[in-house]
């Protein structure tokens, strides 16, 4: 069981001092319940089937026979964000796609985690400099928990990223269950693009 403190994810704000509720302060019962609940949560991290580009093929390879995500309880890819715990942003996020990524993240039920898979998602990858239409890092739109570098990362690397997410789950406290507050601040602001006509319906 990964018990050591996570250092793969971004720093998260400690809410213990801000929380006035004495019930959620740590005590013996709460921590034991915490441990049990966290164990179940880290044992069943369901990913969202959400592929963008090349990395998505490696994500499929990870789900497939040779690497088999299912061994670690993550072999239940959910097509709908409502039932998923983990969003693997696999592939280049373009500016046209960024609002959809954000919306999908918002539609997921807490507690939710994000893996940024591949160079493009982390910082634009090979398209950082001349890719005018490429979002330079998905962490400008949604908060990212674990970064998995590579172009694309090998399935083993993605599995390592999954273990980092499991560590995050395991080390969480009941007191910071509201992860929406505990998330790292996103760099860029975000608004929906204002559109004059209904999207997708060409004139």
């Amino acid at each position, binding site marked *: 069981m990964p018990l050591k403190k996570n250092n793969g994810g971004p720093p998260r704000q400690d809410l213990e001092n801000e929380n006035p509720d004495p019930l959620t302060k740590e005590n013996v019962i709460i921590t034991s319940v915490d441990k049990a609940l966290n164990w179940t949560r880290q044992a069943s991290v369901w990913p969202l089937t959400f592929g963008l580009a090349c990395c998505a093929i490696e994500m499929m390879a990870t789900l497939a026979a040779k690497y088999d995500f299912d061994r670690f309880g993550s072999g239940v890819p959910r097509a709908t964000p409502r039932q998923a715990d983990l969003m693997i942003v696999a592939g280049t996020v373009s500016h046209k796609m*960024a609002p959809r990524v954000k919306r999908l993240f918002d539609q997921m039920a807490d507690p939710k985690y994000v893996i940024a898979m591949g160079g493009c998602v982390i910082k634009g990858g090979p398209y950082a400099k001349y890719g*005018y239409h490429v979002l330079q890092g998905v962490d400008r739109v949604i908060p990212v928990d674990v970064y998995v570098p590579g172009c694309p990362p090998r399935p083993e690397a993605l599995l390592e990223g999954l273990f980092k997410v499991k560590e995050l789950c395991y080390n969480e406290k009941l007191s910071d269950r509201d992860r929406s507050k505990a998330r790292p601040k996103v760099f860029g*602001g*975000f608004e929906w*693009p204002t559109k004059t006509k209904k999207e997708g319906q060409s*004139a």
Partner: protein
Amino acid sequence: MESSAIFAALKTKFGEAAIDLNEDGPEAFAMVPSELIPDVCQHLRDAPEFDCDLFSCLTGVDLKGLKGETDDGFEVIYNIESTGKAHCVSLRTRVAREKPEIPSVSSIWETADWHERESFDLLGIVFTGHPNLVRILCADDWIGYPLRKDYEFPTEYHGIVCEFEGNEDGTWGGHPG
């Protein structure tokens, strides 16, 4: 049919002056004035000796700043092929930068529809008579034509900073930390 024979036939049909040939480079092509493009294309598709039914590719090229080029407009290249007769034709035309307008050939080949939208999207070449000339690849509210040589990269798009952040020492890449 050899490309020289095709070009000879085109010359006799549309007049010596209208069509300029270039057969020296890696690819032989016929330079056609932009207003003649639909007629030439229609003829290439319908005439039984040409039978050019497959529209392979449409490329727009920004000529601004190209070495040895006085024109700063756009060049549009049509690569057309006949599946039955297995010959290829390459047509080129040029338009001015101030008024980049070419009659559309989307009514002749369905394929040209998306290709012309793409050239409009990335280079700002307007294909007159196109049924639905809107952006295809970039976001609908994208500003500028990215493949133009004088395109300025955006600094911000809907609140998201787009400027390229290299590392502090000017290199490019590395771990996000």
